[in-house]
Structures are given as C-alpha cells and as structure tokens.
C-alpha cells in the first residue's frame, strides 16, 4: 500500500474524474475504480522513485507551516524554484509532504 498522496496531482485528478464518469455511466463498479486508484498509487510511487533523477532547489519565505499526522504542510510566498535547466517563480505555493522514511 503506497501513499495515496499523488492522487491530488494533475495526473491523479484526471484519473479520478475519468473513473467517476465511468461509474456514472455504469460502465465500471466503484470497487473497480478503487482498485484502479490503488494501482495508480503503486505505479506513481515506483516511477518517481526509480525513473526520476533530477534535483530542484527552491527559496522563498515561509508563510505557514503545519505538521499533523506526520504530514508537513507549508505555504510559501514569493518562491523561486530553480532547476539546472530553468527557473520558475510563483507568488504562493503549497507543499504537502509525507514522511519519506516510513512508506506504507
């Protein structure tokens, strides 16, 4: 059982919306949709761990921080994400981070 953290990404949200549509049209059962999402969790976790090898630096000002149920939630302002190739600046960004050591 991997983190269900990545369901709230563009990819994960799109998958959930599609599954909801299929359930609405009775093409799949909710149970099947749930299984699909669980498989998605496993796949995304493996892919991120094995198939991604880049590094990012960022700097900004911390607006809020929250640590609850071993989940950190930050809100940063005026953040600059720097990668080797390019640079992205955002006024506000929310970072949700689960514990990387104890992965379910």
């Amino acid at each position, binding site marked *: 059982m991997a983190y269900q*953290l990545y369901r709230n990404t563009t990819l994960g949200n799109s998958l959930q919306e599609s599954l909801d549509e299929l359930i609405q049209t009775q093409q799949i059962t909710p149970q099947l949709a749930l299984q699909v999402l669980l498989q998605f969790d496993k796949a995304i976790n493996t892919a991120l761990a094995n198939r991604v090898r880049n590094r990012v630096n*960022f700097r900004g000002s911390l607006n809020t921080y929250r640590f609850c149920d071993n989940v950190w939630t930050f*809100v940063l302002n005026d953040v600059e994400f720097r990668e080797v190739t390019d640079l992205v600046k955002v006024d506000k960004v929310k970072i949700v981070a689960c514990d990387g050591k104890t992965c379910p």
Partner: protein
Amino acid sequence: MTAVFKTFQKNTGSIATFSLPPGMSYPVQIPAGVTLQTSSGHLYKVNVPVMVTQAPGGASRILSQPVQHVIEAREPTAAQRAVAPSVLHTAAPQAPAGPCLHPPEVQQQHVFLSQCALPRPTAPPPPLIPQAPVSPGDDQFTLEGIEFSPRLLDTGLPSSFPAQLSDFQAKTGQMPASGSEVGVQGETKGDVGALAERADNARPEDPAKREAGLSCDYNHNVLEDIVQLDGACGGSSDEGEGGEEEEADGVTENEFLGMINAEALRALQEGEGSTGGGSSDSSDAADEFAEEEDPLNSGDDVSEQDIPDLFDTDNVVVCQYDKIHRSKNRWKFYLKDGVMCFAGKDYVFSKAVGEAEW
C-alpha cells in the same frame, strides 16, 4: 542587625537581652519581652513591642510612656540618678509575642525609660518622670540619639494613648512643657493619679475591636483599589461582592462590556446572514469593534488571510520529506520524489532542497 540575643528564664518569663552594637542602623524593631541593655549597663525590659528610631536631632531622650507601661529597671543604681526616665510596661494588655508590626495605621506608644525601681504593674501606676536632657557624658542612661518611636501594635493600647503620644518627640531641651501632647509628659512623680485615671478610662476599650476596625479599614482601602473588570455586568450581578468591589466607574465599564458584547453579536449575525454584501458591513462593524477592543488587546491576531483561502492555491507540490530543519525562523527542507504543478505545468523531482524564512 547584628544584635545579640541571650535568652534566659526568669520568674517573669523568658527574657532576651539585647545589646545594641555600635554602628547599628536604625530603626530597630524590638519585640515585646525584650530587655534592653544600654552601654552603661542598665537593663530595661520592654514589655511592649517598640520601634527604636534615630532621632534627627541627635541626642534625645526616651519618650514618655503611658502609665500602664511599666518597665522594670534592673539596676539599683538608678535611684541615684537625679533625672531618671522611667520605663514602663503595660500590665493588662499583653503585647503579642513576636515581632511588632507597624502597619500604616500606627498606634504609637512611648517607651519611657526610668532608672527608678518601679513597682509591678498590678500596683498603682508608678510615677512617671519626664525625661530631662542629659549631656552625652552623663552616666545616666540616655539612649543617646535614640528615639523610641512606638509603632503599631496589637497591644490593645487604649486609643487615647496613641492620640496623646502621637506627637510626642523628646528632644534635647524640649521638655514635656508641651503638655498637650503626651499626658505623661507633664507628669511628675506625684502626679500619677491623673494618668492612671486616663489610662483606666481608656483601657476598657476593647483592643480587639480596635484591631478589627483597623484591619477592616485596611482591607477596605485595599478593596477599593481593586477594579473588577470581568465577571457579570453590574446590572445583572447577583453577588453583592462584585457590586461592592466595583467602583463607581465599574458600572460604566460593565456597560462598556455590554456594548462590546452587543456589537459582537451584531457582527456575528451580520456575518452569518450575508456573504458578500454583508461582509463589508460586518467588516465595518468589526473595525469599530476592533477599535473599541484595543484596550483589551483583542487585536493581537495579525493573520491577514483566512486559513481556507490561504491554503487554496493552484500551485501545489506533492512530495515526501526526508528532513525538515528549523533554526530560529530559518527553515530548511529536504524533500524527495515530488510532483510540482505551477500555472498548469507539471514538474517532477527526485530530490528538492529549499530554504525559507518564516
């Protein structure tokens, strides 16, 4: 205070001898039952707590004392003195054991030192001899430069005595000619009866009552200084204590609080009833409300953004954390395996290191 106290038992009870070391600073507090030993060696027992202070004028004599205060002179040589202040101690009212108190409401009693052998308190009041100025070089006992300014006490002294003794100041050359002050001052050896009469008349007064009155006054003054700002409003207060303790201004304060509560209710209702249109109204009310509450420090919340709005953003990073470090207000983030979404574009990273200042 580096006084030396030696206690030894006598039929009269425990006696503590007190020798005033040189250079001791005044005022000195002498509890009851203390026997003072002067430099000349005379012993004077103080049965009433007294406060020994330094007279500004320098050499001064011991102040006279009410008739009831009889202090036994231990030195037989006292009789040889021409002028001998008499030490008296109270017979009936017993000074409480322990240090003497000197609260603001001071009952003054005077310690009248005498070198004459005086009869016990049960006997008719001994003669009171006004003190006469004595040169420093005299053998006579003078606690030079010492002024016994009586303080306080729960000794139960008659009220008349404090009134009489309040102004008593024995100074060199300042004989008790001002007899209006302490009645004892004008007393001579043979004029004891009048004093005794006065003392007796004043004695019946209940010392406890006076003490209670004093303490009550003291408490009352303290209570008056307390302003109650919390608790039930003045109008609806059921407890008498709350109403009594509040000053006249307290009523207005309660009304003030009532106004605040009413405004708060109004602000809440306005906020609940409407969203966009009512928000401005509620904010206006909230502004007024905030201004009124400034004295109460209710404007401490510096949050500019509501929490739900604060966390509602499109730019989200979903990742796992290896380590989150903080030093004072400097934060360091060590993240991994993350997916970032900014302005509709997605990014991924295997490792992310960040710094932020809170």
